[in-house]
């Protein structure tokens, strides 16, 4: 019987390790449905992350060993690898990871100092710089590549046979002309065992399990995942009253990176809001922006941009969501004491 701890882990190293453990079910599910490319991406990203971190620490004359062994940069690498297209070539992963660690983290002073989520910064940078690779190299879970094909994709020769756009994009571009019932006939939906989207639904479930375990371990608080998922649920439910014209609720929740982001991306404590109430508002903000960008924007998924935008809003959220201090009439609002 696992005993629920009374406190979050007592060491940064253990916090990061818990998150990595919680990602394992999702990694397994993704490898099963999207092929060995996921693991190749992971390996590349982890090695790049460690090397970039070591390089930066050396240039900054900081001790290397404690930071490399606290798992934080490994986590950044893993989060990027899991966000990239599964048939991404090696250079894409390396570029995304190196920019995340170097530009997103160390330019601002390393662990604990980054104003924005490094993984999302790396992702967004590459999405803007290499939009074609980032939008066409997603693997169709109905037809995942074998190991050899995955390797070919990794070294830069992907095949159209198993790659394409994300389901979310698919739904928004190709199915917009169809009615909901017609769209449902697509093999991705028709073959789904759980009734949602083939493959994606299992991946989402795996991330959900990992995320719930993190909640149980008190590594994260409920405010963030509930804030994001509830916002997406409410907004998409409200606007998709007619499923023929709008992307339905379940696509918003299962496709895209909603669940992964809710438990593993938005919960980055460094760049997010810090009070419980602040975390809730932060996640709600990401939810609203995500829905807007997904619906009206040009990019396949919107989480990265929404997270980056809300990261910049986090200090302001912090100023207005302080808890009421014991002995005070009201909570202190707004910035102050700058002089």
């Amino acid at each position, binding site marked *: 019987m696992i005993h629920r701890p009374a406190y*979050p882990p007592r060491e*940064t190293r253990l916090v990061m390790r818990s998150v990595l453990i919680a990602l394992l079910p999702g990694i397994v599910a993704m490898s099963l449905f999207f092929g060995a490319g996921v693991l190749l991406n992971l390996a590349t990203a982890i090695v790049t992350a460690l090397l970039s971190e070591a390089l930066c620490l050396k240039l900054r004359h900081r001790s290397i060993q404690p930071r490399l062994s*606290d798992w934080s940069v490994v986590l950044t690498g893993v989060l990027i690898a899991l966000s990239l297209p599964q048939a991404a070539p090696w250079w894409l992963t390396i570029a995304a990871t190196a920019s995340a660690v170097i530009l997103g983290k160390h330019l601002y002073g390393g*662990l604990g100092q980054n104003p924005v989520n490094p993984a999302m910064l790396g992702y967004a940078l590459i999405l803007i710089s290499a939009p074609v690779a980032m939008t066409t190299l997603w693997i169709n879970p109905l037809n995942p590549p074998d190991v050899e094909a995955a390797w070919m994709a990794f070294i830069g020769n992907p095949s159209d046979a198993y790659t394409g756009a994300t389901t979310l994009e698919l739904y928004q571009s190709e199915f917009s002309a169809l009615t909901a019932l017609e769209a449902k006939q697509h093999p991705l939906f028709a073959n789904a065992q759980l009734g949602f989207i083939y493959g994606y639904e299992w991946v989402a479930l795996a991330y959900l399990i990992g995320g719930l375990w993190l909640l149980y371990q008190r590594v994260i608080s409920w405010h963030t995942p509930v804030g994001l998922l509830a916002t997406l649920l409410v907004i998409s439910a409200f606007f998709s009253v007619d499923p023929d014209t709008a992307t339905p609720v379940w696509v918003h929740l299962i496709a895209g990176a909603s669940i992964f982001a809710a438990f593993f991306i938005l919960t980055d404590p460094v760049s*997010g809001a*810090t009070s419980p109430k602040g975390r809730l508002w932060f996640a709600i903000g990401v939810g609203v922006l995500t829905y807007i960008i997904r619906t009206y924007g040009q990019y396949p998924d919107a989480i990265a941009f929404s997270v980056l935008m809300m990261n910049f809003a986090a200090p302001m959220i912090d100023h207005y969501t302080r808890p009421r201090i014991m*002995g005070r*009439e009201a909570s202190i609002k707004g910035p*102050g*004491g700058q002089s």
Partner: protein
Amino acid sequence: MAEYQIRRCDRHLTGGIHPETHKQLSTAEPCVFVETPTRLLFPIHFSGGGPGEALVRVGDPVAKGTPIIRCQSGIVHVASRAGTVLEVTDHAMAHPSSERSACIVIEPDGLDRQDYLSPINWPFDAETLRERAIEAGILGLGGAGFPSFKKWSNRTQTLIINAAECEPYLTADDTLIRIDTHSMIRGACLLSRTLDIQTIVIGIEDNKPEALQAIECALKESRSDCFFDIVLLDTKYPSGSARQLVWLTLGIEVPTGSRSVEAGVIVHNPGTLAALSRAIDGKPITDRIVTLTGESFTRPKNVIAPIGTPISHLIAATDTNPQSLHSVIIGGPMMGYRVTDFSAGITKTTNCLLAREVEVQPESPCIRCGACATACPVRLQPQQMVAALKGDALNRAIHEGLGDCIECAACNAVCPSNIPLAEWFRRGRFEMKERAREHQQASDARDRFEARNTRLERLAQEQEAKRAARKAKSADALNKARKAREEIS
């Protein structure tokens, strides 16, 4: 029999932590008197009650109870044993600053000469009691050392006996309640009668069943007509912090910037009340219970030691060689401070010597995980405050609520990055108070300067007026004389 009720506290501390209590370590052995040491040390300015002046000179003979120091607040400290004043010299002391300061050194002669006050008899008024508390050197024995008489206001409705003792390892209060229950109850009753307090609340954590039983027995025997409301608290740190205790037992949130006294509540440590009871009989504070505990002591226990006993003497009382220890912590693991010079003497606020080996983990950067905010009993955001302090932005830290911090160090205990948050806050709060003091001094100086200017101006005007009057008068006289002359001629 005094009327009383026992109830479980229906409020729960926001935040707080459950550290290992380690209390059984020091309660296994009975509480004993330590032998009188060969030297007793009394810091003149740091014995509690503010800076003081020595009332004795080198070579003076003193008896047990002879006043030796009078502090700015009026509080008098007495010699804890009979002997001779050996010297007045700079010496190490048991104080967080770990600096050396002037101390009176007394060499006890082992004789039983006493120099006590005369007992005061009931009925007496609050002023008499205050005077007695000053003469007997009564101050908060829980660790803060705040002069007790300053808390006694006539607008007080409730007296809370702080028997929570939530700090891990400490059992001094627990011990005192068990062996000196009657004094504590008597002190509480007499204080309440004098200040016209109706209810006495005893806040006690539920991990002290023996102490609770002792209180019950004493109350059954007591003939007091005060009502005792015994509140059983969850064992959670820091439920014994004054503000937290007032809220837990009475539901009153003491407003920021004011003391519990202003909310009509007095909070006293059990030891303080027992000492008050003895002071009424004429005995000033000469001894206190000290918990000697920690894994590094061979035989941890509670002892009754004369004030001024050197730390090394107490370490030896636990069958431990003082040389085998590098440092001890005075207070507890949460709020205590480290002392390395064992020749320093204990003061009235030294409730515990803790000796244990703690592996210090290296500090890593804050990742804003918020664990400290969850543990904070005041609902502060320590992660924001420490970021401001590390960035040298004291004003921003104050804006975030630095002034509300109770320095309980619960944040330290949960920080995954091992950041010594409480040390930052202690330093920040010190700087904050210094700044306020400087500000006050500057504005006082300005006021004085302006007052002087107006005074000088007024004087000048007065002199001018006088001169004018004199001039007018002499001119008048001259005129009159001239007129008279004219008339004559």
